[in-house]
């Protein structure tokens, strides 16, 4: 069920009205709404999700018992196997066949039958995080499955995050009965939902067909086309994914929940460390807390630290999809992080000298944005061969002859970057912007802008409801 579909808007409206009309049954209401929301994508997958959730819930309540360790590993194993089966069976069998030459006769028919349940990567990571947190005694196990289910399957973030932690979200769910209909909550809710709609419908869905055109014809691209297409994809994926996260935040506000921020204008980052604090933040922190740190993190030698970063980033890449291109994308970002760590360790005097220099910040941001874009080629290309063709095109400086269209390319990319900078600026001066907006601009002018936005959203909404990129993960 897509956020911009009629069905979802009806479900949201109905749940919202009932939520505030009948405070005593809120938990049951969200329990049911989450089931309906996920059930629409397939009853069989809903059953799998509920069973895995219940097993995790069951195990989490046995961790302090005599054989707690068994329950911990059993819980982990079930979650990992569930993800592995649905997401990686085809990939594993294909690579066994490719590298070991062992082909199973039932391989193709099995793979054809496996359909990836929506949101499986997200809910698996959320379940694992919860189980580990309970095991580490960072949080108390949830005593009610009703509460646990609302925490794990809240429809606003179930399909594509943010990946919520039990320590943040469960206490909010427990207090659900006390949530009051608040003016500021509704305002923030509508604000974030509107931002989500603008990002998804006006930007992401508008960029998608252009990117698809270019990427479907990798060999036909010249250097400028390859860079242009990849810049557009960088903005498409940002708008698309951050739109979902902002929908989630907005819907969360409507029900009195604070959802984690997942994006903080990532393309203003000047290095990998900053980038991962701005891009898909809840996944980055998950990888850090549940993979990188348990491996040893920064406590081991520099070489091992770099190795752990590389492994963690490759796992992050693989989480995105069962394709080598995603693993390469993760490895590429791992290498960027390793290079940055090396720079910090051995050339920190340069950084110290220029770190407050605006020009240095601009240059490093520009350079890192280009590096990020090279990585996006692996993420978007239709296979490794296409990715390599596009990368070669980017650096071959072929087919460059003065052409008016390059001016259009430049203007479009600069405008998109300006939109990104505007978002960055608004996030820094949010309170001042809000104050100016509500106090200095009269209601009739604000309303005119809202009305234009509504009209634009309607015009840009296409007949086919386009899905979110991250739904496939």
């Amino acid at each position: 069920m897509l956020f911009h579909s009629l069905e979802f808007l009806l479900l949201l409206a109905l749940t919202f009205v009932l939520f505030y009309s009948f405070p005593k049954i809120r938990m049951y209401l969200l329990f049911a709404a989450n089931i309906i929301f996920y059930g629409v994508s397939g009853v069989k997958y809903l059953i799998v999700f509920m069973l895995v959730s219940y097993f995790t819930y069951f195990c989490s309540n046995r961790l302090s018992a005599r054989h707690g360790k068994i329950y911990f590993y059993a819980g982990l194993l079930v979650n990992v196997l569930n993800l592995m089966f649905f997401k990686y069976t085809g990939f594993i069998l294909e690579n066994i066949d490719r590298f070991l030459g062992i082909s199973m006769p039932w391989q193709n028919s099995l793979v054809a039958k496996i359909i990836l349940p929506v949101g499986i990567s997200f809910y698996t990571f959320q379940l694992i995080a919860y189980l580990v947190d309970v095991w580490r005694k960072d949080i108390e196990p949830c005593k009610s499955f009703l509460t646990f289910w609302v925490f794990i399957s809240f429809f606003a973030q179930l399909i594509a995050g943010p990946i919520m932690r039990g320590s943040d979200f469960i206490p909010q769910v427990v207090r659900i009965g006390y949530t009051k209909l608040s003016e500021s909550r509704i305002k923030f809710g509508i604000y974030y939902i509107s931002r989500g709609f603008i990002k998804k419908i006006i930007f992401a869905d508008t960029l998608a067909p252009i990117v698809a055109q270019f990427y479907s014809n990798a060999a036909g691209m010249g250097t400028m086309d390859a860079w242009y297409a990849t810049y557009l994809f960088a903005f498409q994926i940002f708008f698309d994914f951050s739109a979902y996260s902002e929908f989630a935040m907005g819907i969360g506000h409507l029900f009195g929940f604070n959802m984690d921020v997942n994006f903080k204008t990532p393309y203003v980052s000047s290095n990998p460390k900053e980038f991962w604090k701005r891009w898909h933040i809840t996944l980055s922190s998950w990888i850090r807390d549940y993979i990188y740190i348990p491996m040893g993190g920064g406590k081991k030698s520099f070489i091992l630290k770099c190795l752990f970063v590389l492994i963690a980033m490759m796992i992050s890449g693989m989480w995105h999809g069962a394709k080598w291109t995603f693993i390469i994308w993760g490895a590429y970002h791992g290498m960027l992080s390793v290079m940055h760590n090396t720079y910090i360790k051995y050339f920190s005097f340069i950084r110290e000298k220029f770190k407050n220099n605006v020009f240095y910040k601009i240059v490093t941001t520009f350079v890192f944005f280009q590096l990020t874009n090279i990585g996006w080629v692996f993420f978007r290309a239709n296979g490794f061969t296409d990715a390599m063709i596009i990368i070669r095109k980017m650096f071959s400086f072929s087919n460059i002859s003065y052409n008016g269209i390059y001016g259009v390319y430049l203007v479009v990319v600069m405008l998109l970057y300006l939109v990104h900078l505007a978002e960055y600026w608004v996030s820094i001066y949010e309170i001042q912007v809000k104050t100016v907006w509500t106090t200095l601009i009269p209601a009739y002018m604000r309303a005119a802008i809202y009305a234009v936005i509504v009209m634009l959203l309607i015009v840009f909404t296409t007949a086919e409801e386009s899905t979110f990129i991250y739904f496939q993960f």
Partner: protein
Amino acid sequence: MAFFKKTTIWVIAYLLIFQVLLILFVPTAVVYEDRIKYDIVKNNIYNIEAVVKEIKDTIREKKLLRYAVILGDSVGYSTPCPSEASIGYYLNEISKREGSDIYFFNLSMPSMMGGDIYTMVKLLHKYGISTDNLIINLIYPGFIKGEPYNSSIFWMKDFLKDVDFQVFKEVYYGFYPVRNSDLQEAKAAIKHKINTSVPIFMYKDYLFNKSYLEALDRKAAHFFGQPLTEIASEPIRPWYEKDFLYDLMKHEDNSYIYTDKPFIMTDKNPQIYFLNKIIELQKGKNTVFFLAAMNDELLADEVNKIGYKENMQRINDFFEDKSVKFINYNGRIDYNLFSDFIHLIEDGYKYLAEDLWTRIIQYEGVGGK
């Protein structure tokens, strides 16, 4: 919640003003240019209502007293030619050349069947658009009962429900092969209502096309050498320059096009059911049906089969005693004018328009000066 009140009232006011402005100021060319904009309507059939509304406005603004509406499928639409080489365009040019005051509106659309045409006639009536002069294009395979013409209604099912519920029920329970669930029906009804009642929804795809897709097409034209969305972007070639056509037509999947199985010419055949309905509806009006010619050079073996010829005769016989004019173009179009088995090249549609004109001016009312 006081903070919402003032702003919300203003937003609602602006939105209402926008709706009025849209009705008043969207140029007809955005919605209709010599024919329906198929690329836009095919993705959302409810967009056809904006066309009908614009035609009504054009009739009022131009104070047209005599006009004719063309309904039909891809031949009437004039696939694969651009709009400025379509039947409607040529007929208007001829009308101007001949000093006639009659104006032609072409509402044909690829894959329109008898049921769609009947619904269009009813929809025109709903908008107060006269069908006193009506030209309808039919094709030979449209008379098949069963696959792929099970219900004889391809596009306009939801409209039929709206404009003639009784017939809809008969069709839905009698012929319709795939039935939607109640939820799908309810969703379609809501979508239909919104799309046809609120101006921004009525025009949104046209505005999007104008503001975005046309720009995208220009970009695609730069990159790929051809636009993406315009059907007629490729040069129109005659059929004999397409080597693949012969094999394509012989393919089993396409054999229905020239079937020699006997046509059922009773109301049990949805095409006949709807043709009878149209004829009944058009009683006392000028209605011209024309059967598009098949390319009898490309389909030489097939059109010479006895069964095919008998079917052709059945169609002629069907119209024999009807109160409408019927023109069967089979054998009357030079095979050099075809672009495939049934569609024509620019000169073909020009010829068809000229021929239609000479025939319909003999028919009282339609083209007469």
